[in-house]
C-alpha cells in the first residue's frame, strides 16, 4: 500500500471516529435543551453531563487531529479549503469555541440557565451543519481557482439541493447516533425513565436519518455522477449499512440489548461512510486535489505514518483506561463514584 493511500485511510478512519464521538456530544446538546423545553430535563441532564464532562476535550482533539493530519498529508488542501473556507471555517471556530468553553464553565456554573442551554443546544446543531458543508464542497462545482485566487460560489452553494440534503443528513444522523448512545448509557446506569425517553428519541430520529441518506445519494447522482456510480459499484457496502440499520431499529423497537444496538449503529455508519469515501477516491477536492497529486513528499508521508502508529500505541491503552473508568465502570455510570 502506498503512503498516500495509507494516509487518506488513516484520516478517513479518524473522521469516522470523530463523526461518532462528536455526534454523541452534539446531539446531547440538542436533547438537553429540548428536554428542558418539554419539562423532562430532570430525567436526562445528569446522565448527559456524567458522560460528556470527562470526554469533551478528547472529542475536540479528534477534530483537530483530522484537520492537522489532512494538511500534513495533503498540503494543497490548505491552499484550496483554507482560502475558500475562511468565513464558514471561522464561524465554525467561533461556535466550537463557545461550545467548548461553556462546557467547562457550566460544570461550575448553573445548569438552570436557559441561555446557556440554548447555546449548548443550538451550537450542537449548527456545528455539524457547518462542518458537513466541507463534504459538500469536496464534490466540486463550488470552489474555483483563477490565477491562484480561490473563490467559493456562495450562491451556488446555498441554492444547491445537494448541500441542503447533506446538511439534513448530518443533523438527523447526529440526533439518531446521540439518542442511541444515550439510551445505551442510560441502560447501563439502570436509569429507566431516562432510558425510555432516549429510546423514544432514537426511534423517532431513525426514519428521517435513512430518508435523508437516500435523498443525499439521489442529489449526488445529479451533482457528481462519477462519485455516484463509484458508490453504486459498492452496492454491497450500502446494502450492509441498510442491513445494520434494520437490526438497530429492531433492537431499539424491542427495547433490549442496547449495547449491541449501538454497535450495530456504528457498523451502519461505518459501512455507509466508507462506501461514500471509497467512491470519492481519487479526489479530495474534485477536480483540484487528488490523493496522489496532492500528497506530501514521501519522506514526510512516511514520517507522519510512523508517528501515527507510535501515537496510537500510546493512545489506545490510555483511551481504554478512560473507557474502563467512565464508560464501563458500572458504579461510575450509575453515579456512585
Amino acid at each position, binding site marked *: 500500500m502506498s503512503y498516500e493511500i495509507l494516509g487518506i485511510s488513516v484520516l478517513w478512519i479518524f473522521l469516522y471516529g470523530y463523526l461518532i464521538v462528536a455526534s454523541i456530544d452534539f446531539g446531547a446538546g440538542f436533547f438537553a435543551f429540548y428536554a428542558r423545553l418539554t419539562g423532562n430535563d430532570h430525567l436526562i441532564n*445528569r446522565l448527559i*453531563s*456524567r458522560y460528556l*464532562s*470527562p*470526554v469533551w*476535550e*478528547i472529542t*475536540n*482533539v479528534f*477534530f*483537530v*487531529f483530522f*484537520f*492537522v*493530519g489532512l*494538511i*500534513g*498529508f495533503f*498540503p494543497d488542501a*490548505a*491552499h484550496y479549503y*483554507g*482560502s475558500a473556507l*475562511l*468565513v464558514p*471555517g*471561522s464561524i465554525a*471556530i*467561533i461556535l*466550537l*469555541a*463557545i461550545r*467548548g*468553553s*461553556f*462546557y*467547562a*464553565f457550566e*460544570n*461550575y*456554573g448553573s*445548569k438552570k440557565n436557559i441561555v446557556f442551554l440554548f447555546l449548548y443546544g443550538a451550537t450542537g446543531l449548527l456545528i455539524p451543519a457547518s462542518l458537513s458543508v466541507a463534504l459538500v464542497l469536496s464534490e466540486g462545482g463550488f470552489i474555483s481557482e483563477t490565477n491562484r485566487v480561490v473563490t467559493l460560489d456562495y450562491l451556488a452553494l446555498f441554492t444547491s439541493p445537494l448541500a441542503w440534503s447533506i446538511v439534513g443528513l448530518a443533523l438527523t444522523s447526529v440526533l439518531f447516533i446521540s439518542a442511541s448512545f444515550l439510551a445505551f448509557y442510560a441502560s447501563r446506569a439502570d436509569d429507566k425513565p431516562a432510558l425510555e425517553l432516549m429510546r423514544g428519541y432514537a426511534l423517532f430520529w431513525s426514519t428521517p436519518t435513512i430518508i435523508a441518506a437516500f435523498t443525499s445519494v439521489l442529489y449526488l447522482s445529479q451533482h457528481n455522477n462519477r462519485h455516484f456510480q463509484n458508490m453504486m459499484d459498492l452496492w454491497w457496502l450500502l446494502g450492509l449499512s441498510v442491513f445494520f440499520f434494520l437490526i438497530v431499529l429492531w433492537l431499539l423497537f424491542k427495547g433490549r440489548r442496547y449495547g449491541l444496538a449501538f454497535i450495530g449503529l456504528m457498523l451502519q455508519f461505518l459501512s455507509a461512510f466508507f462506501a461514500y469515501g471509497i467512491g470519492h477516491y481519487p479526489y479530495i477536492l474534485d477536480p483540484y486535489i487528488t490523493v496522489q497529486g496532492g500528497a*506530501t*513528499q514521501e*519522506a*514526510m508521508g512516511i*514520517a*507522519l505514518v510512523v*508517528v501515527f502508529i507510535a*501515537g496510537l500505541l*500510546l*493512545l489506545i491503552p*490510555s483511551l481504554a*483506561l*478512560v473507557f474502563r*473508568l467512565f464508560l464501563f465502570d458500572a458504579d*461510575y455510570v450509575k*453515579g456512585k*463514584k
Partner: protein
Amino acid sequence: MVVDTVLWSRLVTGLTLSFHVIFATIGVAIPLMVAIAEFVGIRKKDNHYTLMAKRWTRGFVISVAVGVVTGTAIALQLALVWPNFMQLAGNVIALPLFMEVFAFFFEAIFLGIYLYTWDRFRNPYLHWLLTVPIVLGAAMSASFITSVNGFMNQPGGFVLEAGQFMAVHPLQAMFNEATPSKVFHVLASAYMTGAALLAGIAAFSILKKGATDYAKKGLKLMMGVLLLFSFLTAIAGDTSAKFLAQHQPEKLAAAEWHFKTEQGADLIFLGWLNAEREIMGALHLPKALSFLAFSDFNAEVTGLDEFPVDEQPPLLVHYLFDAMVGVGFALLALSALFFLLLLWKKRNELNRWMLRAIVFGVPLAFLGVELGWFYAEVGRQPWMIRGYMRVEEAATTSPSIMILFFAFLLLYILLGTMCVFVLRRLFRDNPAEAELEKAAKAKPDSLRSEQAQEEGDPVS
C-alpha cells in the same frame, strides 16, 4: 503602514495568539505546580498541600478549556488565514504539528482521568503518577509547537526547487537550529509565569484575609519555584541571544539597535530615535553587547547595515526586547528578595509591600510572555519563513478577514470575561479555609465520599 488584507491577517493571528498564549502558558505551567504540591502533600502528609493541588486543578480545568478552544482556533486559522504558508510549509513542518496534537491528546486523556480519580486509588502515589503524563504531555506539545516557530525563523531540512520544498527531511526541519534555545526559553518562562501566578494569588489572599497557614505554605512553595525558574529563564534568555547573534543577527541587531557591524559593541538600553535615526537618551554599556552575544568583550557583532532595508525588522522591537528582559530580571529579583527576607530573621517576608509586589508580579509575568512573543514574531518581519516566504505572500486575499478580526475580538472578550467570572465564583464562594474546616469536621471515611462527590461530580 498600509491597512490591507495582509495587515488584517496579521492582526487576526496576533489577536488569537496573544489571547491563546495566556492560557497556553497556564496550561503548560500549572500541571507542574499541581504535581509539586501533590507530591509535597503526600511526602509531608500535610493535607494543606493536597488541597492546594485540588484547588489549582479546579481552576486549571477552566483555563485549560479556554486554551483548548483558542488552540483549536489558531490551528484552523493557520490554514484559513495563511493558506499559502501552510501549503508550502506543510510539506516540511507538518510532523511537529501532527505530534503536538498527539501530545495534547495524551495530556487531555490523563487530565480527564486525574480529575475524576482523586479517591479511587489506595496508594496516593498512584494518583500522583497521573500527573507525570499530564506534565510531560503539556511540555511536549509546547515543545512541538515551538519547533514550528523555530522552523519559521531557521528553516531547514529541505531544498528549494522551482518554488517547491523538495528533498524533505522532516526531523531535520523539526530540530532546526532555533528549536533548542527556543524550547528552553518557552518552557522556563512558562513555569516561571505559572509560579508567579500562584504565588501572587497566595499573596493576594494573605493581604485580604490575613496569613493563614494554607496561604503561607502556598506562597513559600511557589516563591521557591519562581526563584528557580526565573533564574533558568535568565539563562535561557542568554542562550537565545547568543543563538540569535550567530544565526539570526538581524533580529538581535534590531532589538539592540545595533546599526553597524563592529567589534566591542556597546549594549544600548532604552532610549529613543530622533529624525536622523540617531539614538538619544539611551544607556550605553561599553562592549556589553559583544560580551552577551559571544562571551567576549571584543567580538564582532553583525549590525543591521549588512541587511537590505526591506529585510530589516522594525526598530520598535527594541522596546519589546528591553521590557521583556526587564520583566525577567524583576521577577528574579522579587523572588530572591523574598528569600533574603525569609532568611534574615529580623525582617518579615510577609510585609505588605513585599506581598503587593508579589501580586503585581502576576500581570508582570504575563506581560513578559506577551512581550517575548511579540518580539519573536515582529522581529522576524518581513519574513513568514525567513529567507523563503514573505508575510504578504503567505496571507489570504479575502477581504472578509477584516470583519473576522472583530468577530474574534468579540469572541475573546466574551471568553475572557466568562473565564474570570467563573473562576471568581468558583473560589470566592468556596475559600480554602472553609474546605479545610469541612474536611477537619468530617470523619476520614465520610470525608472521602464527600470529596469524591465534589471532584467526580461537578454537577450539583
